[in-house]
């Protein structure tokens, strides 16, 4: 088959708008057929495009996992860190070089199991980080073990008789910890997701976006929930958009309703603003603006 077979004529100069944002020399990526991670990347790229941000100043930080591989495919300054530690790494990166727009892109297990403490503390500090959590409700990279997001009764490789632990409501936890912006979408909601991503790129402070995404290989199939496409159809049919819904009422289950939307959007001074305010109040003129990034020159 030819590389670009098509019955309609395609302008010579036409190209896929995501390509300039990706390390095309690393394609094909490792993600499975019907995996939703790539779809979220499309939305992220569209958000970057519309934000008109200077991409040289956008850094992306991931932990470990299938989602954690996003950093490696994004043609940005990109950091594939250790499992669960994307947020503290991003914290250092942001504080050392505040001009950077720092995006944390990782999985539900990475951010809420091993990384849960860092997430709530970064939210408490209102650190200026934009966190995208691809929630496939499973530890995918390691072969389908339970995550703190896996809904009750689902079967996983470490819960062969069905998960019985209650799962986290990620949006409620993020809000309680202090996040300034909290939203949830699914990979079906590509336009809304892209818009949300655009909003957080324009907002200061700790922002959190949860994206439900299919993992046909290790979650849906093992639970007889079909492939990626069937999952997308389920998302379409089960989702209710309720912007501003109380996050406490937005818990998820295996096959029930999925409340999506923007739940929280509040203005709080971010970490660096708080620091400047306190330091100038107590130190006055003696306070010196951090010039961290220059120090090593």
């Amino acid at each position, binding site marked *: 088959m030819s590389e670009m077979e098509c019955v309609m004529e395609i302008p010579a100069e036409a190209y896929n708008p995501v390509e300039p944002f990706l390390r095309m020399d690393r394609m094909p990526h*490792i*993600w*499975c*057929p019907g995996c939703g991670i790539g779809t979220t990347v499309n939305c992220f790229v569209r958000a970057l495009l519309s934000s008109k941000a200077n991409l040289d100043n956008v850094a992306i930080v991931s932990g470990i996992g*299938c989602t954690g*591989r996003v950093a490696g495919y994004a043609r940005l300054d990109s950091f594939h860190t250790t499992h669960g530690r994307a947020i503290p790494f991003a914290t250092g990166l942001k504080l050392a070089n505040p001009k950077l727009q720092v995006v944390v892109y990782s999985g539900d297990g990475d951010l809420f199991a091993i990384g849960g403490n860092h997430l709530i503390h970064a939210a408490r500090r209102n650190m200026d980080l934009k966190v995208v959590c691809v929630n496939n409700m499973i530890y995918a*990279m*390691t*072969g389908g073990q339970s995550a703190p997001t896996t809904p009750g009764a689902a079967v996983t490789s470490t819960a062969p008789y069905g998960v019985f632990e209650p799962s986290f409501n990620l949006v409620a936890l993020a809000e309680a910890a202090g996040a300034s912006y909290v939203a949830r979408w699914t990979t079906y909601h590509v336009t809304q997701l892209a818009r949300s991503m655009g909003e957080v790129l324009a907002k200061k402070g700790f922002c959190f976006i949860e994206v439900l995404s299919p993992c046909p*290989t290790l979650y849906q199939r093992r639970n007889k929930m079909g492939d990626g496409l069937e999952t997308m159809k389920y998302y379409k049919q089960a989702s209710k958009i309720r912007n501003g819904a109380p996050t406490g009422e937005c818990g998820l289950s295996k096959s029930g309703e999925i409340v999506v939307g923007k739940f929280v959007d509040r203005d709080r001074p971010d970490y660096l603003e708080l620091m400047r305010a306190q330091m100038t109040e107590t130190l006055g003129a003696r306070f010196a603006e951090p010039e961290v990034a220059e120090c090593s020159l």
Partner: protein
Amino acid sequence: MQSLTEIRIAGFGGQGVILSAAIIGRAAALFQGGYATMTQSFGPEARGGSSSAQVILSNEPILYPYVTQPDVLVVLSQEAYTRFTPELKRGGILITEQDLVRVDRIPPGERVFGVPATRLAEELGRKVVLNVVMVGFFGAVTKLLDAEALRKAVADSVPPALQKLNLEAFDKGYEYGICLINRLAENGSLEISPAILEAES
């Protein structure tokens, strides 16, 4: 003196490649008094995509665990075919899922056997048993292990509820293999001509 037979089975995730290798290894190690070491190849941590398993059969304990030059190569996908045939031992046996693999060139001195394992499995109403069909076919055309040992291994490798189905699958593949062998024997050679390949795919 130690005799070693190296086998590689490769395809994509979901085809049950690992189980088929396990059945062969189990047959040799548990039901035929020999030694077998099975290893798998993993992609980046544990993705879907391609999948491959190796078995070494021997009459003595096996020391070096990896397959370097398979005597038998079983491929269930075009990708696997392209990737692994080059390492097949001269005079080795190549077995293909003939609906999924197009054999473009016959490697010199190699014997090639094709089986529509997926189709045969579908005839049994359960596509998933294509791997066991393949094991049956493997048994018939390689004659490396007794059919009985293999059947025992199949039964031993699947949940009781699925034993009947899988044994049927094994037999179907085995019989298909026997017929093919005979047919080839009749037309005088075990080398298959590209023509036949075309005909079958």
